[in-house]
């Protein structure tokens, strides 16, 4: 589903590329951990797949198409097929849980009827049944991230990109969130998680892509966080 061919991304003012000569393939329904120290290029790689950034050289293919060649309409369609989950949740404080999740459907023009049917079901799936009328500030970090996940999955994406999704939650909640991502992956959605949560990576034994200084240094099925594990 995703293929990177010799992708390099350099930012202006930086002598070292954020991503250097990376080639990889990720299939449909795969669950992939992206690991590496801070500044290794994990977030840049996610941005390249989301087409928020364009590669300085090389190509990123999504469903067989070079995303750098997308026209404006195709770019929108591409982004609508991807659900993003962030470390800082990025929930809208003035909206309720229901409204935050519904927002993902509203901005792509889905009907009020569909929103009424889908949002409660998704909230139930992520374990937030009955919390629809709460505001983000009234929820714990783990619950807020569940809202973020619900907002990402409510539009039935082909791919979930999560950037440090457990960075702001405790260990128990991290484990539950990872289980949630695994459930989503089992339903056929590809999940790519950039993370520092070594214990989760070691415990779940999924495919691991390790980056260092922008280069892909390891691509291991059922891998661990570090080389030694």
């Amino acid at each position: 589903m995703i293929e990177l061919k010799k992708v390099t991304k350099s930012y202006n003012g930086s002598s070292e590329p954020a991503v250097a000569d990376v080639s990889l393939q990720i299939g449909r329904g795969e669950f992939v951990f992206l690991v590496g120290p801070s500044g290794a290029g994990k977030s840049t790689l996610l941005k390249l797949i989301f087409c928020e950034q364009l590669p300085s050289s090389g190509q990123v293919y999504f469903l067989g198409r070079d995303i750098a060649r997308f026209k404006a309409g195709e770019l929108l369609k591409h982004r609508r097929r991807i659900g993003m989950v962030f470390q800082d949740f990025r929930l809208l404080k003035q909206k309720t849980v229901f409204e935050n999740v519904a927002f993902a459907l509203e901005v792509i023009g889905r009907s009020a009827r569909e929103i009424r049917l889908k949002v409660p079901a998704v909230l139930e799936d992520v374990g937030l049944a009955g919390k629809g009328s709460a505001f983000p500030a009234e929820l714990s970090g783990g619950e807020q991230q569940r809202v973020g996940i619900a907002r990402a999955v409510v539009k039935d994406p082909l791919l979930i990109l999560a950037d440090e999704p457990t960075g702001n939650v405790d260990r128990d909640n991290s484990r539950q969130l990872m289980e949630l991502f695994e459930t989503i992956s089992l339903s056929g959605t590809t999940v790519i998680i950039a993370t520092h949560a070594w214990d989760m990576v070691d415990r779940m034994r999924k495919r691991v892509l390790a980056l260092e200084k922008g280069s892909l240094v390891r691509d291991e099925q059922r891998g661990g966080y570090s080389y030694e594990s």
Partner: protein
Amino acid sequence: MNLNAIKYCLRQGVVSLFRNFWLAVVTAGMIAVSLAILGGFLLVALNVGQILYNIAGNVEISVFLRDDADQELIRTRLDGLDGVREHTFIPREQGLTDFGYALGDSALFAGLAGENNPLPDMFRVRVGESDMVEALAEKMRAFPGVEFVDYGEELVARLLGVTRWLNAFFLAISFLLAASAVFLIVTIIRLSVMARQEEIGVMKYLGASNFFIRAPFFLEGMAMGWAGALSAAVALGAAYHRLAFSLQREALLFFLQPVTDPEKLWPVFAGLLALGTVMGGLGSLVSVRRFVRA
């Protein structure tokens, strides 16, 4: 963009207006003040134009005749001229009497009656359009038996000059006011965009189109512009009605009559409404294009 998205944009525009209700009220109020001043200038310009037209339209052409002139021939020629509203023959005796009355002491001219009267016979001619005075006067000069023609060239030229100057002045002031109102809307929408920066960022990640992101701001600006223009039109209409009514009752001079013809007035008020809406839309368009990046 489908119907659901359009409904969402409309709803967001309204929600945004009410979320920043007092900011929107202040903005609409400032637009109203700007447009009321602009509309006031337009009404003053309209009335000044009418007053000048009234004065210029009442300028008379005095056609002085030689002693051997054929009065009937000149009368026929005047009848045949396009643009002549009316003409009156003033025999030299009446001319002297009128002159005496005009100076306030007819006794002074007692010795000039009869054969000593230095004044010639004349026609007083009124024309329909003030800007035709000069051309008609030229034609009358060529009539046989006409000694000379006078129509107060200086007055007409000065009035036309003043009209042109006032029009340029009102145009410049109006442009400045309109530009400052647009600048105000740009600033307000910018504030609105900044207040919703987080939401806009999330919308981009959720796959919202630029149009979808920008449309509520555009509607918000148009609504503020329209509300301001409507307030300005209502306030200005009420004030003008009151002023025109009292001027109509109390003005003694014919040329000070205010414009009350609805056909002349409604374009000013309709124009204000359209201008307010366009200014609102334009201001928000400039702002969102500048501050909402794809």
